[in-house]
């Protein structure tokens, strides 16, 4: 009944036997203990569970853990490198891009994925890129500012791979 999967999460390899119906988000949270990825709905609309799967932003509540077999996953816990925050994380901190913090990990990963593809997005492009992530606290303005600030930083530093 269990299916064996191997995944790389935040640069670490894991192997596990999982029930096929186990959602990736539950695998990350309940099996690996990476609780920074949140759950806010069951209809793939809120984006709180966003992680990077092979570099692409996906909603981990709408991916089965078995579908992620062999994948390389980055969660919010793996975004800072060598003790240094990712520029999008810094942006959120500096521009007050969060209040309750619940949507924040997903929002940051959506922002990071955007900048990896489009280093100089317009405000409209940013708003489109985070349209799959709902925030009920901030009204989005400071989130947009945070991503813009990160884009400026990345430009200055010559870019960084997610």
């Amino acid at each position, binding site marked *: 009944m269990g299916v064996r999967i191997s995944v790389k999460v935040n640069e670490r390899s894991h192997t596990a036997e999982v029930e096929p119906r186990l959602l990736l988000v539950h695998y990350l949270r309940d099996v690996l203990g990476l609780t920074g990825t949140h759950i806010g*709905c069951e*209809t793939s*609309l809120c984006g709180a569970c966003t992680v990077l799967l092979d570099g692409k932003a996906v909603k981990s509540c709408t991916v089965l853990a078995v579908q992620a077999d062999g994948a390389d996953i980055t969660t919010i816990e793996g975004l800072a490198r060598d003790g240094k925050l990712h520029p999008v994380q810094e942006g959120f901190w500096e521009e007050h891009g*969060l209040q309750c913090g*619940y949507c924040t990990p997903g929002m940051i990963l959506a922002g990071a994925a955007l900048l990896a593809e489009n280093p100089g997005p317009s405000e409209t492009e940013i708003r489109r890129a985070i349209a799959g992530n709902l925030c*009920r*606290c901030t009204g989005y*303005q400071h989130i947009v500012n945070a991503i813009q600030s990160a884009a400026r930083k990345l430009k200055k530093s010559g870019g960084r791979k997610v």
Partner: protein
Amino acid sequence: MKRKEDPRLIQGLGHYVDDLSLPGQLYAAILRSPHAHARLRKIDRSAAERAAGVVAVITGEDIRGVLGTIPVAAALPELKVPPHYPLAIDNICYVGEPVAVVVADDRYRARDAVDLIEVDYEPLPAVTDPEKALEKSSPRVHEQFKDNQACLWKIEAGFPDRAFKKADRIVRQRFLNQRLIPVAMEPRGVLASYDPGPELLTVWSSTQIPHLLRTQIAAMLNVPEMRVRVIAPEVGGGFGSKLNVYGEEALVAHLAMKLGRPVKWMETRRENFLATIHGRDQIDDVEVAVKQDGRILALKCRLTADLGAYHQLLTPAIPTLTGLLMLGCYKIPAVKIEYVGVFTNKMATDAYRGAGRPEATYLIERMVDLVALELGKDPAEIRRQNFPKPKDFPYSTPTGVIYDSGNYEATLKKALELAGYKKLREEQKKLWKQGRYLGIGLSTYVEICAMGPSSAMPAGGWESGTVRIEPTGKVTVLTGASPHGQGQETSFAQVVADELGISPDSVIVIHGDTQAVPYGIGTFGSRATAVGGTAMFLAVQKLKDKLKRLAGHLLGVDPKRIEMGEGKLVVKGKPKKSKSFLEVVQAAYVAKTLPPNFEPGLEATTFFEPSNFTFPFGAHVCVVEVDAETGDVHILRYVAVDDCGNVINPLLVDGQVHGGIVQALGQALFEEAVYDENGQLLTGELMDYAIPRAWDVPRIETARTVTPSPVNPMGVKGVGEAGTIAATPAIVNAVVDALRPLGVRDIQMPLKRERLWALLEARGS
């Protein structure tokens, strides 16, 4: 200053309820009624009990006489209070009412077993329209009451009938404030654990009110309160929806005690839509008496509030806040309000961001626009004309509240200037001629916040604050407020650090744990800073006095000559004569060289009881264009000038304003909880119920005026709800204004595209 909360939250290191796990933890899943009104005939749980991993299946019969009812704190004369149990006993009154709970060894199996419970319901006729519910022929939500009227509350002052006789004109309108769903991004969740050794029940809950919850859990479970510890960990948004005591909180605690193992329950979004409190749902029939010159003489309102099936903590009290604020920021000398609360077969309404004040502001701000329309005057002019002047403050309203301080004209002037109001009106005329629908909406609001004082609250309107300077000179602040996104870990640290002349990095703010923090009230009603912050501010004053006394003693000078410097205590006028902050702190703990009758240690607690509410105010300007073909509303500009008294952290205030405005935008344009006539919630998922997304929202321009509040020493007022209170009428006023050439005078919220399109089409646009 950057927030102290953020490093953990931006790295996924914060702990919300579902992030916590305890050894041996079980999971609860709840079976909820698919019927809006029914009698429970029989529940067969045998198959669920036999299912793999299931530890227990509990129904209403199991808690009869064991668990108390869900409390309502609102006190209104002749309020009908139906018994409200954590699990339904005998009767079901709304879709989503808990019927049974399964406890299993993992969340998947718990969910599976819910499907195996068989319930025999006898469906009863339901009523979902509050006006129909008041008719004699209506089905009764609760059989034991003779009708569905839950309460009746009236205000009358200043001879309104006489004023209406003197009026040149009477303007009437019915306003609907639709039912809303709060949708905090983190649904509710509870984890409970009972430790039989110390006989301690610990409950982690996503709540805004840990101390009140502790008291109520103790009462519902009949456990001594000192044996209950409630912890509000990170809370992923509340907006009032977690300012409550829910059946699940008592139920999960009870299960943990009964089963002797930790139990966790996490609400799904579907459950959150069905069974976490809703907001608004008011019908307001309003009339105002007006003089030809624009003066408003009196206002009358019949307010019908759909309260849903049961009372939650404050359910019937919310519309009374609408009553208190109904005259808005205008000097209207006479008023008559009759509020009828009605039971229907729906989820309870309760405090949702703004709680009663958005409804008040909506109806008065819409009404003032209608008066302007009726008299052919500019809406800004009518407002100016009816504002109380700065010299009128403190201003006592006929509804019985005292506006603490204000300068309404100044905020309006600033907002109009920022928006370029005159130019906008010229632009509008031009576009109207081209068949384009540009609209400009104003909202000048005043709101009531910083809840207390206690005399005006269902219970305690005070707040506690403790400041403890540790022996190493680091500072721990304990606050009874329970912030969940507002950022008080930062702003409170800023205040304490400023007062003590130390770095905010040396200050930590602890909240949300009843075992660590003295009794407190919680975070709601934009009260955390104005009441909780003041408690802390006063506590730190006590410590400053103590530090000065000790420093004076150590330096051999009169303590009155000591002042706080950066990291030191200094003799006034003699900057070289000082003791470092740390030296004085250590002296207080070492306690060998204390002045006579000086208590060792450095900890002070204040329970601050405010003398009045505070009344923030402001002026918002919204500019929209309505797509003449589709009815789509494009918000072109949004200018918000708010006055929340003194500001501690401007970035945090902007964040509150932005978020508040966008929640209002949701109500104005999309959000609407729709029940069908059988009591089924048709908007029961994020698929159907729209909350604003990033691309729905304009860039908001903020500015401020500063009129300090006299009711607390920091002069702060509160800003958590201002945006939500102000913006709904600003947006609706703008859209109605846009369609003025078509003779439109009112449009019901939400301003759905089709609604506007129908108006455009009917008038042959």
